[in-house]
């Protein structure tokens, strides 16, 4: 019995405290993509993996030939553990990397061959270092990370030391002195064209800030390099102390993240909006000049977070995202989505569209709620910000909000109908057979153009109608065609645009067929009831993309070779992407992205990474 209890205890202890890669996520991580179904990625080549943008921070040293032709499996990765890609930005440094399990350390360093072992100050942790990155291995889990101090902090420290040593302003342009002296020369000192002038614009040693005449003293740049290196080491030490001495990791610091990891999903997504907003580079400017305003603005995001589950189904990938708000933002989003769906928009979405979206929001209600939240922040901020609050109060009192929000209440829609041939004009040259002299003639032509329709709900269609009528009287290219307004040669210098005001909608399109034949809607040619119902039932947002058709029509030229490679995988194959959302409640809004593909696919792991990469690009 005693043995049984001991064994049970040991097994339980082992399972609880078994090393897991997620335990090595630094607490500074602001966003994390955690892949549980690592087996899915076994076949993905490392060469392909390092091309993703979420690998950009660590890829330089990995993508050096040592990964050529190898897969994650060849790299000694333990597929029983998660791979967690992370990035984070503190007030003074940025950290990126990924954590993973190790099955075979020798294989790992065959691939990561730029790394060499270094002395470790942490018991039970092995360190490897390359020029930019470090790998720390504890048990059979590892974290590969890169830490970079923010340059403005490095420069701030450098400046402090520089001036403390009695140096002058490092960026003074001494050539200004010469220019001033030259301007004081008598006017008869005329420039002799034969003289040679020294080119002082090109970079030269003279322009580098000098410490002093003593060659043993560092120049400004040398000093900054030293500060940067020292600060880098300080940041690395701080991160390692937190992880390996004090056992502070994201898992233990944020229970929302830990809870998300318990979901049965192939991957999870985590973005701490509160820290993400606070660490934005733009906020540093605000912190410097408007500290009160900055702190109060940041408080708006307190408790806001985005959590997501990624699931791989048969020929489909689904992403469920929950955007959770704090107590200040929550009511604003709640009011924003408190509106009825405008079913008129569905009349203007053609059943053969390539892609469309509907957005269903109530700006008036959101404005009223935001006004109550934002005005106290502005009023209690620094004087210049507080002064702007007066303007907003005046506007609020004097402007007819019923009219403003009657014209644009926030609900809108858009559809992309692929490429269509549109009428344009071109110049041709007509030759005289007698002399081969030629003259210009303008003739009708046709060109392919992406056809779209966009519109928004308006209860005050009379306002844009007045504007369009007035424009059609004073502007020759604008014509009132009764059912619509025509604006000629406006799109890409060649194609016309049409404006329609019908059914409490203001619509802009370059689709002549819609304007001339269907100003009241497509009727039976509009999207079917089933699709319309999906859009109606979705909360704030609904989007649908026919991946095969939409991507087929996209011009290759606007994408890089790598992006085209990724798009080529989908080109020519049928599939759909669909975004749905719930109505916001006090605390959250839920979104769902479903990517459904048909046909044979070599490796659905790449689609999974594509999705992760898209999230990374959107959230970085």
């Amino acid at each position, binding site marked *: 019995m005693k043995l049984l209890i001991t064994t049970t205890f040991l097994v339980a202890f082992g399972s609880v405290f078994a090393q897991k890669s997620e335990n090595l996520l630094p607490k500074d991580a602001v966003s994390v993509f955690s892949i549980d179904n690592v087996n899915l990625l076994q076949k993905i080549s490392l060469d392909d993996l390092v091309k993703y943008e979420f690998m950009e921070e660590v890829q330089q040293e990995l993508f050096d030939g040592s990964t050529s032709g190898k897969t994650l499996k060849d790299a000694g990765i333990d597929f029983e553990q998660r791979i967690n890609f992370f990035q984070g930005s503190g007030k003074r440094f940025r950290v990126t990397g990924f954590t993973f399990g190790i099955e075979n350390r020798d294989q790992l360093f065959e691939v990561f061959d730029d790394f060499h072992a270094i002395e470790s100050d942490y018991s039970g942790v092995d360190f490897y270092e390359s020029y930019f990155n470090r790998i720390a291995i504890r048990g059979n889990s590892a974290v590969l990370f890169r830490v970079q101090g923010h340059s403005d902090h490095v420069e701030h420290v450098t400046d402090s030391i520089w001036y403390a040593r009695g140096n002058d302003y490092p960026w003074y342009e001494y050539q200004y002195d010469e220019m001033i002296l030259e301007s004081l020369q008598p006017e008869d000192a005329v420039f002799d064209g034969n003289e040679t002038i020294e080119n002082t614009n090109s970079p030269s040693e003279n322009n580098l800030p000098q410490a002093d005449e003593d060659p043993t003293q560092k120049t400004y740049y040398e000093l900054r390099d030293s500060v940067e290196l020292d600060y880098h080491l300080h940041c690395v030490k701080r991160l390692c102390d937190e992880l390996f001495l004090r056992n502070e990791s994201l898992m233990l610091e944020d229970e929302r993240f830990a809870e998300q990891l318990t979901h049965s999903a192939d991957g999870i997504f985590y973005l701490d909006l509160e820290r993400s907003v606070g660490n934005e580079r733009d906020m540093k400017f605000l912190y410097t000049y408007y500290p009160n305003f900055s702190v109060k603005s940041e408080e708006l995001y307190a408790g806001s977070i985005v959590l997501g589950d990624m699931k791989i189904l048969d020929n489909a990938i689904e992403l469920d995202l929950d955007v959770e708000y704090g107590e200040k933002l929550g009511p604003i989003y709640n009011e924003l989505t408190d509106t009825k769906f405008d079913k008129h928009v569905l009349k203007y979405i053609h059943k053969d569209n390539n892609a469309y979206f509907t957005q269903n929001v109530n700006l008036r209600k959101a404005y009223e709620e935001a006004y109550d939240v934002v005005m106290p922040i502005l009023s209690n901020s620094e004087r210049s910000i507080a002064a702007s609050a007066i303007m907003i109060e005046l506007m609020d009192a004097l402007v007819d909000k019923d009219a403003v929000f009657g014209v644009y209440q926030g609900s809108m829609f858009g559809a992309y109908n692929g490429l269509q041939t*549109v009428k*344009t*004009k*071109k*110049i*041709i*040259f007509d*030759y005289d*057979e*007698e*002399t*081969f002299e*030629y003259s*210009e003639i303008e003739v009708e*032509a046709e*060109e*392919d*153009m992406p056809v779209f329709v966009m519109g928004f709900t308006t209860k005050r269609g009379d306002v844009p109608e007045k504007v369009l009528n007035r424009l059609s009287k004073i502007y020759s290219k604008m014509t009132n065609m009764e059912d619509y307004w025509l604006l000629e040669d406006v*799109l*890409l*210098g*060649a*194609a016309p645009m049409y404006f329609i005001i019908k059914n409490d909608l203001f619509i802009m399109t370059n689709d002549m067929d819609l304007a001339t034949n269907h100003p009241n809607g497509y009727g039976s040619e509009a999207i079917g009831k089933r699709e319309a119902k999906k859009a109606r039932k979705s909360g704030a947002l609904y989007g649908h993309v026919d991946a095969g058709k939409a991507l087929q029509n996209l*011009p*290759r*030229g*606007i994408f*890089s*070779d790598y992006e085209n490679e990724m798009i080529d995988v989908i080109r020519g194959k049928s599939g759909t992407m669909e975004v749905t959302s719930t109505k916001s409640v006090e605390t959250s809004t839920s979104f769902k992205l479903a990517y459904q593909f048909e046909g044979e696919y070599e490796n659905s792991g790449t689609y999974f990474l594509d999705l992760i990469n898209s999230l990374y690009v959107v959230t970085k």
Partner: protein
Amino acid sequence: MKHLFSLLVIGLLFSMTSCLEIIDDLSLNGDGSGMFKYTVNMSSSKVKINSYLALDSLDGKKVPSISEITNHIDELIDELCTQEGISNVTFDSDYNNFVFKLKLDFASIDELEEAIKAIVRKRSKGRVDQELDHEWLTYSESSLNRSIPRMNFERTNNLKADEIADLKKGMYTSITRFESEVASFDNESAIVAKNKKAVMVRANPYSLIRQTNLLDNTIYLEESAENE
């Protein structure tokens, strides 16, 4: 002259292989002086060009803005104006239809060729020096020989199918005018005007890229009464 085609237009061919029309119009006086007109017409692709200009980059390369293009052309025109034997340089640009017209007078064929070579030499930074040794235009009192530079054509090996299709829709027209009547010419594709004082050769840009001698021609003039 054809080098100007290479310099100014081939770049456009590669970056926006839309339907393109070029007219290369050389008028030669009896004393060897003359007028040169060069017209690039991309109006049938203005939607495509406008959409490209709206982008930051295309195929990984930065797309220049209209003002950058204008500045670049202005620099070329300024350089042309300073070349010996070149005068009355004018450049008309229509950015609504993307039609561009260069017109200049030259004192002699040699000076025209040398002016263009000087600009190409400066701009190409040594990349096409070998080709610059070649004479594209030679004129005697009774004949004119024209040929086309061969540089840069290796770049066209990587053209995509849709780019090739666009190039095939384009047209390059080369016109050579004389004061006296044309007696004969070597290029079998060429045609002569009814007044017998102008010769025209046409080819689509794709064919021209694949076979660079399509526009080469030696034109023989009738002996004038004075010479007789």
